[in-house]
């Protein structure tokens, strides 16, 4: 009984805490998700391309070294 009452009180207290409920309700939060998602994807894409360029250079260097040795 007391536990139930406390639970209800806790729920009521939580509902009073200000959150970005309106932003979620009108769906504009998805705009933010799209923007942040795009930024993170672009940065990762940049890192992936950089990674490939370094791999190419590594191959090129090991080929040149083999030529020098022969």
């Amino acid at each position: 009984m007391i536990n139930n009452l406390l639970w209800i009180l806790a729920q009521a207290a939580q509902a009073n805490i200000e959150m970005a409920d309106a932003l979620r309700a009108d769906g504009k939060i998805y705009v933010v998700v799209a923007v942040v998602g795009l930024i993170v994807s672009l940065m990762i894409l940049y890192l992936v391309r950089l990674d490939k360029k370094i791999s190419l250079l590594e191959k090129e260097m090991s080929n040149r070294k083999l030529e020098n040795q022969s």
Partner: protein
Amino acid sequence: MNWWKWLCVVLLMYTVLGGLLFDVPRLGILNESIRNIHFHVPMWFGMIFLFGFSMWHSINYLRKGNPDSDSLAVESVNVGIVFGVAGLVTGMVWARYTWGDWWSGDPKQNASAIGMLIYLAYIVLRGSFDSADQRARICAVFNIFAFFLLIPLLFILPRLTDSLHPGNGGNPGFNSYDLDSRLRSVFYPAVVGWSLLGYWMTISAWRFKKVKQAFESWQIDQHA
């Protein structure tokens, strides 16, 4: 592309989506900024991971003397500093709107700033040697000390005094809001994802340095 790079991409995308969209506990003072746990906090976890990785390579350098260990130690400290600065700056933004000021001299803020200075000193120290061998050995020793200074600075000292930082101020370990399973389901993948990103950046920087050195020695061979 290695499997862990894919894992990093997937975890980071999940963090962005889940971190912004999933339901979070409604807590006073923190309000919606509780979501920073998926972005600000993993910066510190990533930094600790990178500095730990760096220390491991420094120990290996002292044991075996492989120059690769030394350069991996430097590159992880470089990326670790980037993560640490990101953690400090994002913490300041949060503090401005939660505590009322960018910098209020909170024990957590001061201790992490000192931690950053110790690692900046490592970078400065590296620049002050002529002999590469001497630099690698002395800096490896400094690096090991730096890591063991960082742990009490970040995890013990702020808990001994009254810090306003969530999860601090006499509370050992994580606070009740961390234990919420809704937060955990994003927070743990976020920590792994951001740490993997730091590792990826470190490895890329290290490979670039290595290829640059190979090119320079090849050039010298051409002229000889």
